[in-house]
């Protein structure tokens, strides 16, 4: 079975004053139908650029792109503007981190929701309003009838994120990208929104890609996880396999540096020394080598390729934990 969504060797660079900034350096990834994939990485790891490029949103003159992004075999990366617009919303949709800036502050919720239904699905205004109410009920927003008359600033962060999700699923996309969907929310509200996304995915049989910096968020809600570092996927595995049988030293270090409520309190939290590399610089070796406790000379000289450990577990390391 071929994957619903396939990224292969995607590379994205930006022209900047300081030279070319390589944000994504050869990412390959696939998402099956109805599958849920987590993309985890720290700031600057390229996770957001990768997801936006996958949506076909990065299209300026200063963006240098190569590789391919395919939805059911159709190339999205080089698609013309008017063609890809037909895909947005109906086949591929996105939920952003900050629902306040993603919503138009001077238009009522109802009007914003109706827009895509009228334009994309050709509904009449009354049909669209009816559907909007159904969608808001689907995302469990309390009292939808009164909410559609409100402006975004009159809703709380959690409610706004529910509206954003309702808008994203309005035209029945096959794949939903959620870029840090809960980062701006409080923990109790975050738990509600994660539950909601999980329910919707199952109910609508929709594939989902959750982009986040928080391993905790994806651990309980995904089938597979890709860990990104310095523009590359350094480890990609089924979720349980990734945690049970971590291969990549970066993934291990990341897991250890999170203070955890379910473990004994440690006097000192293990840290990853240093910080991620500058994306304008080119490093011949492994990008994590300068911070890696297991690094050897080979790691500094040669760039590791993605190795297959079997069972869909890929990693990018010469000296993986537990051996090859």
């Amino acid at each position: 079975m071929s994957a619903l969504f396939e990224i292969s060797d995607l590379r994205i660079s930006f022209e900047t004053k300081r030279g070319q900034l390589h944000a994504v350096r050869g990412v390959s990834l696939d998402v099956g139908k109805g599958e849920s994939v987590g993309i985890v990485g720290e700031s600057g790891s390229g996770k957001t650029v990768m997801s936006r490029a996958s949506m076909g949103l990065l299209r300026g003159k200063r963006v240098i792109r190569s590789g391919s992004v395919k939805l059911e075999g159709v190339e999205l990366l080089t698609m013309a503007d008017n063609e890809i617009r037909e895909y947005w919303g109906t086949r591929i949709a996105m939920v952003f981190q900050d629902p306040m800036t993603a919503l138009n502050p001077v238009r009522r919720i109802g009007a914003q929701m109706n827009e895509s239904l009228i334009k994309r699905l050709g509904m009449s205004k009354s049909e669209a309003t009816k559907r909007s109410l159904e969608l808001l009920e689907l995302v469990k927003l309390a009292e939808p009838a009164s909410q559609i008359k409100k402006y975004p600033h009159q809703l709380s962060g959690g409610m706004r994120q529910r509206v954003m999700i309702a808008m994203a699923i309005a035209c029945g996309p096959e794949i939903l990208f959620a870029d840090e969907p809960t980062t701006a929310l409080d923990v109790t509200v975050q738990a509600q929104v994660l539950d909601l996304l999980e329910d919707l995915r199952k109910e609508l049989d929709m594939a989902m890609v959750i982009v986040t910096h928080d391993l905790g968020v994806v651990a309980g809600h995904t089938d597979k996880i890709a860990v990104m570092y310095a523009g590359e996927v350094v480890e990609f595995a089924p979720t349980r396999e990734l945690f049970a049988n971590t291969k990549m030293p970066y993934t291990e270090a990341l897991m250890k540096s999170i203070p955890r409520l379910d473990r004994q309190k440690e006097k000192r939290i293990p840290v990853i020394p240093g910080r991620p590399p500058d994306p304008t610089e080119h490093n011949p070796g492994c990008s994590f080598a300068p911070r890696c406790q297991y690094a050897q000379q080979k790691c500094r000289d040669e760039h590791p390729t993605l190795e297959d450990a079997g069972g869909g577990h890929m990693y990018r390391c010469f000296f993986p934990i537990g051996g090859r």
Partner: protein
Amino acid sequence: MAGTGKAHLRDSGSAVLRVEDLVIEFSLSGGVKVKAVSGISLDICEGETVAVVGESGCGKSTLAKGIMRLIDTKSGSVNLLDTDLAQLKGEDLRKIRPSMQMIFQDSISSLDPHMKVNELVEQPLKVWRRGDEFARRDKVKELLNSVGLDPDVVGERTPTEFSGGQCQRISIARALALEPKLLICDEPVSSLDVSIQAQILNILQDMKDRYGLSLLFISHDLSVVRSISDRIVVMYSGKICEVSTANALTEHPRHHYTHALISSVPIPDPTRKVVGALLQGEPPSPVNPPSGCRFRTRCPAATDLCAAEEPQLREITPGQFVACHHPRS
């Protein structure tokens, strides 16, 4: 939840900071008053880290600003080393400021982008005329070294050249320049990546041991809070729900809100069953809080008593204080 009371305060002799019945009120348009902090009491002993956790809008940052007297308080007292800050004004207040310092969430914008790192860290020493030029220069070097920065490398640069984590290190060095007794940290690691967050938490721990600081740590993140604090205060809608040692509170929460808060923290372990959201809805508006216990509108155990009477903080097991009529067993 949402209780008042002072049962959890310890002997006043041992406390560096002792806040009693603090109320902070804001005026809204139309003469409406909103109590952001509604009768909070807490104390911090020497060398202790006390954390205040709660969700957005619970009043935790307002509480920190009120203690620092960055905003005016309506009633109650804030005793720092036996001086009531709430009563101080003008020059008297200014004179006590060196003994309490604060670091903020957004470390980049809390540093003047036009000043060099050396100047930033030296500024408090200059303002307070501590030592001569040479002594100050040595002190700046010592401070930068202690937060893990190389003074020769960073000293002549400006904050714009640094990342959030490094700016937070500079903020810590600057805050410690005057050797304060109390350091208030308002969400100091919330905007940092996990690998950097751990570095900053360890630095705060080192600084505490080295300078004998007391820390008031404000955060929304319970896992971060547990890793650094001795005692945790849980706030909801301007009131305290539960106060206890960090381990007791996270391992055996007695208040329903604390329990829900802990269950909501996502655990990076896929073999654990996801509990899902225990709480529905969102915190009440502080403009028009519910009667009695403020948590009752979302509480699974609420009864008529909770609407009629506000629970007081009481010691439920030694060292664990809960403001609830029907605490969890």
